[in-house]
């Protein structure tokens, strides 16, 4: 079977009893694409993944995988494989049995089972663990086995449900790389659910940011990071978080952002739709986009309250008037509380959001 893997959701709705979880969601995932569903817990991302897998019944709409309408198919018949947060390994079976159980049930020829297990074990470097039981494995090893179990299914689409959430930071980054490598080797479509924006940014071809059971923004990591469509996406993605300055937009022809302590002309800002004169807005800028400019005439002055060395760089917590502002600086910068800095907020890095509904302007 050719492993076709484009996934398409068309008007999918899910309800638990009278409570609508989703209303008519649409999503297209291309063949070989790595799509991350990102959002805080309770945003519905896992439910959506379960709906794709067929583990949750949908109430309306269609699900297409690999060009087939699989809306009414059993999970096993959808051409998918899945990896879970708790690994969901079969506890009393050894690793080999865990990997091969589904295949044995499907009456795959013995030689084929062995081949696939070998390939998967090799790919994940778990060859020497095959005779152990899950209880005898570390967390990272368990998750490798869980991924291996998905691998042997030889599916066109891989679904990951927060696979790294139960691991410590070190292992998480290791396995992240592993998964990325796997994606490149297999060329399979992957849909990956996480609440961790680093994972999303590092892994994804495209990210779908979810909140309150709707898509906020679907786009490449750059788009999401640089041009968040609303204040929520802007806050949720990026660490440390974006700085926000409340204020107003004035002047129709040459717009100027104005707040209590800041006056910033934004003539070149690409407005999605122009705001009314004097409309309340919020200006957002990421800490790493703020530039130190001791000599610039139009620079703003901020006072340093505290500095956090991060190793590779340094985070300065400052105040602009009464407003907190964090600035990412080179690691070797020497700061003491009370220092005053002069900074520039580059116009091409600015984000303006409607203060009433949070939408990008």
């Amino acid at each position, binding site marked *: 079977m050719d492993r076709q893997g484009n996934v398409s959701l068309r008007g999918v709705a899910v309800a638990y009893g009278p409570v609508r979880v989703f209303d008519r969601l649409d999503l297209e995932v291309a063949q070989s694409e790595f799509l991350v569903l990102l959002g805080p817990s309770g945003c519905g991302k896992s439910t959506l993944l*379960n709906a794709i*897998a*067929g*583990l949750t019944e949908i109430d309306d709409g269609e699900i297409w995988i690999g060009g087939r309408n699989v809306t009414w198919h*059993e*999970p*096993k*018949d959808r051409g*998918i*494989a*899945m990896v*879970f*947060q*708790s*690994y*969901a390994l*079969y*506890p*009393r*079976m050894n690793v080999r049995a865990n990997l091969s*159980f*589904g295949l044995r*049930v*499907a009456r795959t020829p013995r030689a084929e089972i062995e081949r696939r297990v070998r390939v998967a074990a090799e790919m994940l470097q778990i060859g020497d663990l095959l005779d152990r039981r899950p209880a005898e494995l570390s967390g990272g090893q368990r998750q490798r086995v869980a991924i291996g*179990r998905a691998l042997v*299914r030889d599916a066109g689409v891989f679904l990951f*449900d927060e696979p790294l959430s139960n691991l410590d930071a070190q292992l998480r980054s290791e396995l992240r790389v592993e998964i990325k490598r796997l994606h490149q080797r297999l060329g399979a479509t992957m849909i990956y659910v996480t609440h961790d924006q680093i994972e999303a940014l590092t892994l994804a071809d495209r990210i779908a940011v979810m909140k309150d059971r709707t898509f906020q923004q679907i786009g490449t990591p750059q788009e999401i990071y640089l041009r968040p469509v609303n204040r929520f996406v802007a806050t949720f993605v990026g660490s440390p978080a974006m700085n926000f300055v409340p204020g107003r937009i004035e002047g129709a022809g040459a717009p100027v952002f104005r707040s209590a302590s800041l006056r910033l002309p934004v003539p070149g800002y690409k407005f999605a739709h122009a705001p009314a004169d004097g409309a309340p807005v919020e200006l957002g800028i990421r800490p790493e986009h703020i530039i130190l400019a001791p000599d610039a005439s139009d620079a703003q002055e901020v006072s340093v309250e505290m500095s956090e060395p991060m190793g590779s760089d340094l985070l300065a917590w400052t105040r602009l008037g009464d407003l907190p502002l964090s600035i990412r600086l080179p690691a070797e910068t020497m700061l003491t509380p009370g220092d005053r800095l002069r900074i520039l907020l580059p116009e091409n890095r600015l984000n303006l959001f409607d203060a009433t509904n949070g939408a990008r302007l």
Partner: protein
Amino acid sequence: MRIGSRLSTHLALAPALLIALVAYCGAMGWTIWISFTNSRMLPSSVFVGLRQYSSLATNERWLTSVQNIAIFGLLFIAMALVLGFMLAALIDQRVRAESLLRSVFLYPFSMSFIVTGLAWRWLLDPTLGIEKVGHDLGLAWFRFDWLVRPERVIYTLVLAAVWHAAGLVMAIMLAGLRGVDPEIWKAVRVDGIPAWRAYLFIVVPLMRGSFATAVILLAVSVARLYDLSVAMTNGGPGIASEVPAKFVMDHLFERGNVGLATAAATTMLITVAAVLAPLMYWQYRQPARRPL
């Protein structure tokens, strides 16, 4: 540990300790001592060595009782486990009226064995119960007379006991099933593993604790089996459904043969200890604080 806490610990255990020493060990010690005497209706102190035991070893009723309890125990535990697990597994499939069904399966456990035995005795009596119903429906060939057939009667005890206990097993299993990681079920569905294989090869091995608890509870009622035999068959027909506890009781009181009764009780005691001691040892060699 602070002195106060240690004192409190001992204080807290005092009732249990007192009960264990006086009620349990005292009674057991007395029983063992009497089994070496020639006591008849009243306890005596004439030592006769192992005479009661040798007469027990050739006592046909005792041997039948032992054989019966073995058959009963194995069948009852196996069937109660299987039926209880099946009911739990089926009820767990998001069926309608789940809570009603659960109560229906569980209520027999609230009945005493006496009532259980009485009810089943009626149902199984060939001239009153199910067989008669069959005949009244025109099924003249229908026979369900195991209650009055010596070679089959023990299975009717199993039937009644399973009726009594399957609901409890179901409750224990249901609790165990609810504790299974829901993602395991998802993995099973994605892997396309049929339900029965998933239960047999994945879930059952996961529920070792539930099974252990159920087996212990069932085994306790096997060792204590008495009321049911009395109420349902009174050991009959003949001595076909006699059980050890009934042997002890009958000889202790009705037959005025306290020596033989205590010898039988001591034999039961030793058997239980012999089975339990290695289990307990094994249990406590495991890392500390693992529940039984």
